[in-house]
């Protein structure tokens, strides 16, 4: 990590963004839903959903990719383009975000989509759309986010500072990373990923408080959306929203009701349950199922006309009772997570003060009845289940950008799924347990299994099962260069830190050599850095000027930082500079200065990387010397300090954890 060496001059400086510049105080909250999305913002101390010219707050999460390369998002895409171009119009992309081609979601038979054949080892689902293009779920999500961003900019009349984007509480690390990537690609500064039920509780609690009513105590948030189910148990007290436990199923929602109903319709029509791969038919039947489900919220019976593949139309009727019989087995899958969440919180349903309903699917009478059965009480329904998540996200965005309206509010959220490492024999050693309050960290010491083992393969997994194969693989990385020693002699401290977004960072350090390695976990099922980078660059082609300008400004700041650091390092250790080093580094510095004076942030980025490459050997020598000096008899503490300074200074809590480790030796 040569670039990090240059930060020796400013060890305490983290690489996070500079505080909000004047004039850019608008922060928004986005509910990026499976079926529908919304954007909200705090105005005059209260969160409001931003609406379009027709007064409509909801943007259907549907993106159409036209043959000419244009993209169309929202109502038109859903109502007009999806029926005509089912393959090229992606709905429910959220169900594929952060998932791989072998995940169940991408293996469904009844689907309007065409998946691009998975290249060997490609971990990402790709949709084949018009014009020979393939798009990833992250890119589809980015299109929706971009549409919401444009709406917000048009209405707020000023450039946005950043956004809080909500995610299902039960999203794993890979799904969170992918959502963050989508935000970046849309040109949004993602201030925070916020769990949907937590956002809902925040909006609900503050709304009650604003009405002068008491909203303290223990609440369950039952959040059943289009594609995901979350259950969270929270304690609300004096502005502190503390999540006690969370659970759910990130592949369970109203969509699954539609599928169950669609399957029934196909049966009625005498057609095979996979619609024989007829995408247009799949789309029509799924849409008919959704329409029937919605009609049956109000009515006891409904009938719906579906065009067969040969064009003949057939009208099928469905009663609410029959629909509920189809849906009930799907809904029953909520039972386990509800029970587990209550158990993890150490509570019984009777101890709760209320149950808050969130998500469009909770409009169904059957779902309300189910919640009543589960919790033994009537759920609270005086909030709009469609808007409450976006409103909560807007409040959190306001809090994070120093808005004063909500003074003392703080959210204490949790890790939804345990995080651990693969041990010999394919078993999981958990470092962070589910429902731990974030941010949190843990350090565990491991040792070598075989004599003369010179490296460690670290495999990071997430899940509750004991065997690695049953858990979600998040990342793999290696720590090599360990000198040959008898088995059990090397000591590897592995530190997990989960930040306030719920995203994991792992670092490892071998005690006897001081070797370090650290990764922001790049999900095994995610996009590569290069892909995100390319998508970012692609998106600039369409992006507005302010995005360009901000990018340019950021790259200039970054360039200046690197230039200063490089000069300082050269001045500090001139004896380590070989002649050709100096020539190479000087040339790279010159190039970066030229780029920095220009208007192309991409060129600056390239020049920064150029300087990085040019100074690699020099940086390596500085690193080696630091280590050698240590081995020549400086105290271990001094070496540690040196190495520590050389690691990415943003590696926040690793030092804290290491210090704390001594006190944990009972583990």
């Amino acid at each position, binding site marked *: 990590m040569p670039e990090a060496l240059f930060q020796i001059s400013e060890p*305490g*400086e*983290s690489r*996070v963004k500079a*505080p*909000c510049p004047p004039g850019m105080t608008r922060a928004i909250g986005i509910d990026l839903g499976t079926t529908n999305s919304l954007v909200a913002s705090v105005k005059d101390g209260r969160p409001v959903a931003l609406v379009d010219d027709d007064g409509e707050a909801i943007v259907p999460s549907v993106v159409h990719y036209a043959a000419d390369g244009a993209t169309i998002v929202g109502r038109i895409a859903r109502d007009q383009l999806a029926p005509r171009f089912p393959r090229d119009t992606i709905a429910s992309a959220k169900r594929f975000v952060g998932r791989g081609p072998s995940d169940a979601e991408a293996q469904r038979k009844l689907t309007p989509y065409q998946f691009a054949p998975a290249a060997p080892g490609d971990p990402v689902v790709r949709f084949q759309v018009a014009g020979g293009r393939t798009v990833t779920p992250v890119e589809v999500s980015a299109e929706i986010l971009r549409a919401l961003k444009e709406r917000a900019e048009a209405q707020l009349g000023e450039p946005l500072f950043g956004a809080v984007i909500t995610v299902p509480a039960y999203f794993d690390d890979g799904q969170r990373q992918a959502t963050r990537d989508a935000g970046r690609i849309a040109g949004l500064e993602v*201030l*925070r990923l916020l769990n949907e039920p937590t956002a809902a509780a925040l909006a609900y609690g503050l709304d009650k408080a604003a009405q002068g009513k008491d909203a303290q105590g223990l609440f369950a948030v039952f959040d059943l959306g289009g594609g995901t189910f979350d259950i969270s148990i929270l304690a609300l*007290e*004096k*502005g*502190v929203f*503390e999540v006690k436990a969370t659970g759910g199923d990130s592949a369970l929602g109203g969509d699954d009701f539609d599928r169950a109903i669609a399957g029934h319709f196909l049966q009625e029509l005498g057609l095979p349950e996979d619609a024989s791969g007829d995408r247009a038919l799949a789309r029509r039947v799924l849409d008919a199922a959704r329409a029937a489900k919605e009609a049956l919220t109000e009515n006891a019976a409904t009938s719906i006309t579906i065009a067969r593949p040969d064009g003949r139309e057939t009208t099928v009727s469905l009663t609410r009772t029959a629909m509920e019989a189809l849906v*009930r*087995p799907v809904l*029953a899958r909520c*039972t*386990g997570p509800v*029970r*587990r969440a209550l*158990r993890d919180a150490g509570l019984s349903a009777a101890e709760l003060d209320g149950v808050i309903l969130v998500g469009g699917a909770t409009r169904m009478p059957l779902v309300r009845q189910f919640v009543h059965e589960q919790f033994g009480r009537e759920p609270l329904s005086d909030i709009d289940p469609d808007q409450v998540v976006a409103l909560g996200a807007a409040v*959190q965005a306001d*809090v*994070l*950008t*120093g808005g004063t309206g909500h003074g*003392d509010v*703080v*959210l*204490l959220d949790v890790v939804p799924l345990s995080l651990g490492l693969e041990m010999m024999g394919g078993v999981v050693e958990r470092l962070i347990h589910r429902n*731990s*309050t*974030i*941010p*949190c*960290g*843990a350090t565990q010491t491991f040792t070598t299994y075989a004599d003369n083992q010179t490296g460690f393969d670290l495999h990071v997994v997430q899940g509750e099962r004991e065997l690695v194969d049953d858990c979600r693989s998040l990342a793999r990385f290696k720590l090599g260069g360990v000198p040959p020693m008898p088995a059990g002699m090397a000591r590897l401290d592995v530190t997990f*830190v989960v*930040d*306030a977004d719920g995203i994991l960072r792992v670092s490892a350090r071998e005690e006897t050599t001081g070797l370090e390695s650290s990764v922001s976990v790049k999900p095994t099922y995610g996009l590569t850095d290069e892909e995100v980078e390319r998508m970012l660059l692609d998106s600039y082609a369409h992006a507005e000027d302010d995005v360009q300008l901000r990018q340019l400004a950021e790259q200039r700041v970054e360039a200046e930082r690197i230039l200063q650091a490089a000069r300082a390092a050269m001045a500090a250790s001139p004896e380590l500079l070989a002649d050709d080093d100096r020539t190479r580094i000087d040339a790279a510095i010159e190039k970066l200065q030229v780029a920095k004076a220009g208007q192309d942030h991409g060129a600056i980025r390239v020049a920064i990387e150029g300087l990085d490459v040019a100074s690699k050997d020099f940086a390596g020598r500085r690193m080696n010397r630091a280590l050698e000096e240590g081995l020549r008899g400086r105290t271990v503490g001094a070496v540690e300090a040196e190495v520590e300074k050389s690691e990415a200074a943003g590696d*926040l*809590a690793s*030092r*804290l*954890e290491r*210090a*704390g480790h001594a*006190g*944990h*030796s*009972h583990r």
Partner: protein
Amino acid sequence: MSCWSCQRETGAAEKCASCGALQPPELTADHFRVLGLPRRFDVDLKAAEARFRELSREIHPDRFATADPRARKFSMQRTVQLNEAWKILKDPIRRAEYLLSLDGWEVGAESGASRPGAGGARERLPVPPVLLGEVLELREELADARAAGDDARVQKLARDVRSRADQAMAKVAAGFATAGSSAERAAALEPVAHELIGIRYWKRFLDEVAVHDEAEEARRDDASKGSARA
């Protein structure tokens, strides 16, 4: 200590008395100190939870999202430290094991416990054979009851084990209360360590009962759905 931001004296508070900047955490502070509690087993959980929330409100990274990078880093470190401290202290078993660890003890079920002995060697405290015998017997009974689908018997065993765990926990509390800080502390802690070894086994037993309960509840749900359909 002088403040990193304004260079004036800060005192011991988390925020600088002069400029209000968040100060770096004390990295070696034990969990009790982090929560401002006396270092003893007996903890007023309600007061401690109130303190946890109050501190969270003060130092949570969300409150420093637009602050100086150093303040942000300290906020993150302090919050990680606080969350860890509260996780350990709110749970009596973890709290007891942690307190023992502060005295140099280690408690682990399979290996028994150990404490620092003379000359840096570790002195082992093996798992009492009587306890092992009891545990084996109870686990066999649990396995039999589960195999026979006898939920009532499982629940009876669970009640039995729960009461053993409660009694052991009471002894742990009493042991800590009498150990004091005297020269006999090491001797006084020995029975506490013994009880904690037992508690680990009882807890694992009850975890297994919880797995059984979950399976049992799921089975009942299926059964009631089946009868509703019929």
